[in-house]
């Protein structure tokens, strides 16, 4: 019956995203927020924290923080793109680090699941600090549909 969930309905998408994100302890630990899931390109964000720094002298975020947030956000994009509610697992993920993210500013992650097959969801993401055109990093990933249906 969950196959009949209308995943195009922005209210339903927001509810699914909130439950997905709320159910992941690490997302909660780092404070990952769901910003916008109404469209196909979804947006999450992290507020700046001192413990996210990689190079305190230069005042730069560590790239691994964005990496972990990209994994979560890409997963959410795939989860929302699949017809029902089913479990997924990251198969592989690649990051290109274009420029460092600077301290005191937040980090936004925009992800889009651009293709789904019977077994796999393909997704790409852009990480930025407010200007999408000045991306901090780019991400591409593939997620496996592990097959189990979830109860809402």
């Amino acid at each position, binding site marked *: 019956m969950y196959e009949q969930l209308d995943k195009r309905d922005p209210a339903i998408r927001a509810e699914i995203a909130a439950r997905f994100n709320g159910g*992941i302890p*690490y997302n909660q630990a780092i404070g990952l927020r769901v910003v916008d899931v109404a469209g196909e390109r979804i947006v999450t964000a992290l507020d700046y924290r001192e413990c996210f720094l990689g190079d305190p002298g230069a005042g730069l975020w560590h790239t691994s923080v964005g990496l*972990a947030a990209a994994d979560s956000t890409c997963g959410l994009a795939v989860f929302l793109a699949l017809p029902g509610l089913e479990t997924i697992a990251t198969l592989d993920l690649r990051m*290109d680090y274009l*420029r460092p993210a600077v301290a005191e500013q937040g980090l936004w992650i925009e992800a889009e699941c651009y293709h789904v097959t019977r077994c796999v969801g393909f997704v790409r993401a852009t990480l930025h600090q407010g200007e999408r055109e000045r991306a901090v990093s780019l991400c591409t990933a593939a997620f496996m549909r592990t097959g189990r249906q979830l109860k809402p």
Partner: protein
Amino acid sequence: MSDSNESKTTAIHEDLVAAIPYAAYLDLRIEQADEAQARIYRMPYRDELIGSPRLPALHGGTVASLLELAMQFEVLIAEAQTRIPYPVDFSIDYWRSAAAADCLCRCRLIRSGRRIAQVQAECWQDDPDRPIAFARADFLLRAVEGDNPAE
């Protein structure tokens, strides 16, 4: 394996972790029994690293973070860099889900040129012969002045 003989974390290695706040946040440990042995990077388990409470499994992003940080430390130590080398790119293959337990990682510095170091890393939990993830990354060496991508 010589697991009964606990490998030690040296004071110098503790300073390195403390210099990178996100590594300190993950409570990373750099362990090396002696100079001749490969460095082992450990991410001690804690509940907030969980990604899937049902399995339970660690969040893939924490495993990826461990691998990226380990490779960064490996370049920093092996190449005697005075500043933290920045990654140019990174990619990871997830081979098995990570159980709710410590993760360990070992790195291979494949090539180190004048500007770029290329590294691989593998992560396991109970058995090094059953790795849970593999990663590779390129790092920009910063011995050369004016190579800082932040500028």
